[in-house]
């Protein structure tokens, strides 16, 4: 009994609790990323992984004596900024893809011989303001 309590108390110390929880979050996110197909869920999963990384970073900063390491805090902040912008970009892409295909999932596999290839360098591409091949999509950023 006593041993378990001690272990628990030891585990709950921020220096170990945060990294452990962070690692669990990281693993959970990875699982979600692999298992889910809806792209928004996948992006969420990536964010969960990211949170895991930041938790580990914060826990690492709190370990040891004295006040937490300011460098780690700064790194976390920077990391969050990067993660937010990457997420925003990913969501924008997913929105665009959903508009084009009607589904928020990726097209299957590598492009095979039947998929029409979009070539932006060809004049015909913009002859009437739309792509050369009507089947390849209509919504273009402009």
């Amino acid at each position, binding site marked *: 009994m006593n041993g378990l309590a001690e272990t628990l108390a030891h585990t709950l110390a921020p220096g170990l609790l945060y*990294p452990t929880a962070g690692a669990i979050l*990281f693993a959970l996110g990875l699982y979600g*990323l692999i298992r889910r197909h809806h*792209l928004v869920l*996948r*992006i969420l999963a*990536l964010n969960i*992984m*990211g949170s*895991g*990384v930041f938790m*580990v*970073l914060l*826990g*690492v900063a709190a*370990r040891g004596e004295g006040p937490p*390491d300011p*460098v*780690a805090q700064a*790194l976390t902040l*920077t*990391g969050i900024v*990067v993660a937010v*912008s*990457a997420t925003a*970009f*990913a969501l924008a*892409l*997913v929105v*665009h*893809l959903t508009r*084009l*295909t009607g589904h928020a999932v*990726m*097209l299957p*596999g*590598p*492009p*095979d*011989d039947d*998929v*029409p*290839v*979009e*070539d*932006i*360098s*060809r*004049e*015909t*591409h*913009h002859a009437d303001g739309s*792509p*050369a091949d009507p089947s*390849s*999509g209509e*919504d*273009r*950023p*402009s």
Partner: protein
Amino acid sequence: MIPADAELLPGAIAGLVALSLAVAILATAWPRQAHRIGLLGALAVTAWVLGLSALFLNAGPDPEAAATRVALGGWEAPLGLMLHLDGLSMTLLVLTAVVGLATSLYSLGYVHDRIERRQFWPLWLWLWAGLNMLFLSGDAFNLYITLEVVSLSAVALVAFTGTAAAVSGAVRYLLVNILGSLSFLMGVVLLFGEHGVLDLVLLEARTEAGPTERMAAVLMTAGLMLKAALFPLHVWLAPAHGSAPAPVSAVLSGLVVTGSFYLILRLWMGVFAPLATPAFGILVGMLGVAALVWGSLQALRAGRLKSIVAYSTVAQFGYLLVAFPLMLVDPGAWRVVVFFAVVHALAKASVFLAAGTLQHAAGHDRLADLGDVLRARPRTVFALGLAGVSLMGLPFTGGFIAKYLLLEAGLGTVLAGSVIGVLWVLAIAGGGLLAAAYILRMVAPTFHRGREDAGETVSPWMDWVPLGLATIAALAGLAGTLTLNTLALTPGAP
């Protein structure tokens, strides 16, 4: 002269970062003029890099004298950010400048729509700036940031044609990249937690073969392998590289992938060097052999020109993995590996540019229906063939010299008594044969009897730049000694 050059170096390094960022920012702020800014910027950055390399080489031949660390804003590590230039980064900067300039010139012809120009050029300039910073970063966290700059602009470049296939490919590419970056970051965090520093040189001095280092090594290497599309984490590459616009494919396959590989190499030569065991080396080498075979077979099966080229990247990167066990036996072999990567990047970029020209002319890149255009465009096919010869590793190209040195390292391990070395030698020699087979698939229709149809007119840039770059890739054979000598100016490396 020598002290003067060495004194100029720090300023020149910081100047390169500032210049490439300034060009990118200017183009973003002024999208209407982006292509003009881009062209001038490309020329300026290339000139700057070449000047820097002259300074760098003049400051040699002592690696400690030539390699330079610059503390940004006067803040030294561990607190401040360090820029770090040595033989390895110098070589890759020059490579980036050459491929970058060629891609920029090619894009003048390829991206001609006003709106697309505004989207393409800023993104591409950010990518270039990101690569330059990546090669100059000497700090693990900063590497993460630059990796993200490179990845995000690369993803945007894949997506910017806006078709469903392109956007889907971009989303896949993005997910893979974020996953890779996060894995890398987790490793950085672990290292930071253990040692309290981020600067690579300081880290290297403190690391030993402990459990934290092992975990960090696994996470960072896996993340970077994912980004570098190293077997078996390569599945995303062909859809992304194969469906992107030609200049983007060229940069992705030529530079971005090489950038991730550069990081792997740098980490394993420095921070993780104590972790490399022979058994691990054999495992990596096996992966390389599998990549060679699998990538080549896919390239032999693929029906589209650009898919073939994309799969060939998977195959060619197998050589880099095969070289890993060789480096354990002969540590000096890392320079050969870098030279191989450089030559591959040049050749692969020219093949993609040539493929883009053919695709533009024909309106598609289905190999089965491409014969008419191939026959009518001997210049482009010649570029394709010339760069292809370099990929095969046949003379007189850079690929040959690289293959020679790789084979020499492989035979060296065999002579040193390693039985498994025979497998590496067979892989290195036999891979060229597979490459010949899939390159022949692309070139052979030119020689069939049949109609000629030049297809859509092609701008002179698109006509000549692939040939020019392929010629550079071929002549890179003459720069073998120079490259190896430059690489020797890397302090701490064997």
